[in-house]
């Protein structure tokens, strides 16, 4: 791999990489506002300027400038090197680049930062970006001086509603055009643009349009300052109180990597931010996915329910025992959930096929929905592939309905509340559900045991590409909820079996190896019919 030198350090690069990208790949940051690894480079913020030393024998590229002599108060002509934007300059073998080690570069960063703050309002105390703002970070890293201009700053529109989700503040904007480029290049909907020049620059929405679609939240997340804010997060929390967990979005089968930001003081999730993963979602997430953080709280099952009434855990387990007492194993079906993690599903498969000995395995899932060619998958379940891996060829829920109607199945053990079909017919069966979220299945269940959501426990999800991804725990379990695998262990004990799993770690050791192992655990697996041996 060819290399160049950055501040004396050797940096490998792939042909075509810019200086800033090659450095970024190594984790070295050259300060920047407008450059974004997932977007084209307009080189308009000038923060990433670097000094490129001339090749041996060549004359340096210089500029004639006038410099103020502080002693005499006179301007004198001097020369300074012409700095280059590192986001636009392709790296060249053997090139010598000075970033932090060049006085000219440091000076340039200081001055660019000073210009960017020239008309910036004193908004930090009321700005949602405060605490994760590039202007703040770079002031400390690269400027550190006081304001020199004491004239009235230029005023621009504030609180401009761009669309159903985004509000724009012209005064805070540094005109990096990341939002403009995101909409044009990634969302393929060039609805934003810049108008006027210089001081009067502002971002506008195309006449007759508003900023809508499936990728508007991303404009806020690419914004390096507080110019774009989402209506959803606006004035809701101060970011320094938030902690973050590496989560996997539950919105669809793409399995976008996300940061789930939550406030540990209130045990409440506040937002999703995309987590970079070149293999899955690159740097992006869709609006629908970003809002699924709300499902950590909305529509949850947090107390045990027996025949529609809240009950204690002990009572719910007693009821389940009474329901399943003396029932022939052939009349029992288990329903895995594409909404729950691999670990939860493994525990139910273990309980249903090994302990109970049922041969009827089905899966429940949310119905399909919108899809596009960018990120959004038609399958609205985060773990459909995982269930498929555990029980290859697992039957969908409608075929269980037929079985129930034919009275071949009288008892059902299910995971998750979601269902992609009308399930009223289940009322004739005895259904026990362990679920994090309410849904059609919890409606018809005789006993519902509360499970933690993905936000309250670590869990593995298999996305549409078959990649296993772990979503980490953020919140403490709500109400009486426990991880579904733990609830299933309690249920197994209540039904008179001895569960073979007591910890997440234990389940995971059995999951190692992927689908092959899953099959090995149930060797005679055929569609919906698992051998009990």
């Amino acid at each position, binding site marked *: 791999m060819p290399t160049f030198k950055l501040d004396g350090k050797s940096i490998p690069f792939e042909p075509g990489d810019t200086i800033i990208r090659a450095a970024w790949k190594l984790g070295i940051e050259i300060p920047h506002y407008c450059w974004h690894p997932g977007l084209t480079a307009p080189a308009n913020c000038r923060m990433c300027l670097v000094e490129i030393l001339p090749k041996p024998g060549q004359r340096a590229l210089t500029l004639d400038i006038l410099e103020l002599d502080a002693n005499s108060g006179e301007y004198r002509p001097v020369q300074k090197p012409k700095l280059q934007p590192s986001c636009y300059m392709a790296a060249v073998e053997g090139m010598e680049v000075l970033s932090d080690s060049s006085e000219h570069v440091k000076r340039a960063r200081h001055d660019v930062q000073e210009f960017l703050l020239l008309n910036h309002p004193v908004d*930090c105390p009321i700005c949602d970006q405060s605490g994760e703002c590039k202007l703040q970070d770079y002031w400390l890293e690269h400027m550190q001086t006081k304001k020199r201009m004491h004239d009235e700053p230029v005023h621009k529109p504030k609180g401009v509603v761009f669309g159903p989700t985004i509000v724009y503040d012209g005064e805070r904007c540094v005109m990096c055009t990341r939002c403009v480029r995101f909409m044009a290049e990634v969302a393929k909907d060039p609805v934003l643009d810049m108008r006027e020049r210089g001081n009067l620059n502002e971002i506008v929405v195309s006449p007759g349009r508003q900023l809508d679609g499936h990728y508007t939240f991303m404009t806020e997340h690419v914004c390096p300052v507080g110019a774009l804010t989402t209506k959803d997060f606006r004035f809701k929390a101060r970011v320094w109180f938030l902690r973050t967990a590496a989560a996997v979005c539950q919105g669809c089968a793409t399995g976008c990597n996300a940061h789930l930001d939550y406030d540990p003081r209130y045990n409440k999730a506040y937002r999703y931010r995309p987590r970079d993963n070149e293999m899955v979602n690159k740097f992006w997430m869709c609006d629908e996915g970003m809002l699924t953080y709300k499902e950590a709280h909305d529509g949850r099952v947090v107390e045990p329910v027996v025949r529609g009434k809240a009950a204690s855990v002990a009572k719910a387990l007693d009821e389940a025992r009474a329901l399943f007492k003396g029932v022939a194993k052939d009349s029992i079906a288990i329903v895995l959930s594409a909404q729950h993690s691999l670990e939860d599903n493994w525990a139910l498969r273990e309980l249903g096929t090994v302990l109970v000995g049922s041969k009827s395995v089905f899966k429940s899932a949310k119905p399909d929905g919108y899809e596009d060619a960018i990120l959004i998958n038609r399958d609205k379940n985060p773990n459909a592939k995982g269930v498929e891996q555990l029980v290859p060829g697992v039957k969908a829920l409608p075929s269980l309905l037929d079985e129930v109607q034919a009275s071949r199945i009288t008892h059902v053990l299910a995971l998750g509340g979601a269902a992609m079909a009308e399930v009223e017919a289940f009322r004739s069966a005895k259904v026990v559900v362990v679920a994090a979220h309410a849904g059609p299945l919890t409606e018809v269940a005789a006993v519902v045991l509360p499970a933690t959501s993905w936000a309250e426990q670590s869990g593995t999800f298999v996305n549409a590409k078959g990649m296993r991804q772990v979503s980490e725990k953020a919140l403490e379990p709500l109400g009486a909820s426990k991880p579904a695998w733990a609830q299933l262990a309690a249920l197994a004990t209540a039904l008179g079996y001895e569960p073979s799993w007591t910890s997440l770690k234990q389940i995971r050791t059995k999951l190692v190896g992927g689908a092959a192992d899953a099959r090995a655990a149930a060797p005679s697996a055929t569609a919906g019919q698992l051998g009990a041996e």
Partner: protein
Amino acid sequence: MEALDIDLEEGELELPAEPMHLNLGPSHPAMHGTVRIVLELSGETIVKADVQVGYLHRGFEKMCERGTWAQVFPYVDRLNYVSPMLNNVGYALAVEKLCGLAVPERCQWYRMALGELARVSDHLTCTGAMAMELGAFTPFLWFVKAREMVWDILEEETGARLTHSFGRIGGMASPPTADFKGLCRASLAQIVHLVEEGEKMLLKNRIFLDRLENVGPISGADAVALGWTGPCLRASGVAYDIRKDHPYLKYDEVDFEVPVGTKGDTLDRFLVRLGEIRQSRRIIEQSLERMADDGPVNCDDPRVVLPAKTDVYTTIEATIQHFKLVMEGAKVPKGEVYSYTEGGNGELGYYLVSDGSGTPYRVRIRPPCFQITGGLSKLIEGRMLSDIVPTFGSLNMIGGECDH
């Protein structure tokens, strides 16, 4: 701890008696700062004394790991709460050493003057309380009257009489007031006069002298072996004073002497403290002489020093600076440092570890009192019960410092 109920062989004593066990403290008026001494007495003679600190425990060092570096100042105020300014300055110097900062000269003189005022207050409290515990109430009132003057000055300067939280990384919370020099000069003369008055009442008093002289002596070598520093060590004849031996601030530029004792008994410790009050006066007067009337007090480093409030409210640059320093804290370079100053009772050391963030990774205090209190049992064993109070009083144990 050894069992205290050792069987004594009968017949060893003239009158066979069981040893008497007595708890002195932790809640006893003369056991300053909740210390407990478990005594084994034979008659009135102390056979064995088990000194137990730890009744005043706040998890001080752990608390420091929660906030920013600047938020440690209120905590160090509560170490030796009789001379909080010395703790403040000591901590500020430690962080500055880690940051490689030097405060302006004016600030250095200011810190010296304030620190020595705190030392005067410390010694007045110790000697006054010690006299009072032996029944001499009048000198106590004299000394506290003098201490009141010191506190008035500190209140004028900092707004608080006791826990000032006045130190800052890279300077002080505010520059000296216009009246500072005048107030100090006027008060110091009166303070020394009051000390002399008090001394006259005590040092010609037969009873007082008998209670102190040759009570609880310790040799210089023993004191060093115990890790003693400060007035208690100097009373044993070892002239070790950090201000002289490892000068910091501007201590190498002022004239002062280090009072030393000869026998290391309670009287020597009493006299050394009184001598130090006079030396502190000399230092303060020289500091005031040398301290400029204007000029910056805080060093000019935006990474650690807060901007002026008026700028914070009106300019974005200062708002950002304020935000970064308050919300994230000044970033202290990664590393570790041991910095030590002469506190009221001896070497006050801070061992700081920084992971480069705005929050201390570890703050370890080396309080002078901890080592000194460790030597108490050695001083009182074999002595009479009534010797405990003056001996313990002369060590000036401060509970807040012994928080370990």
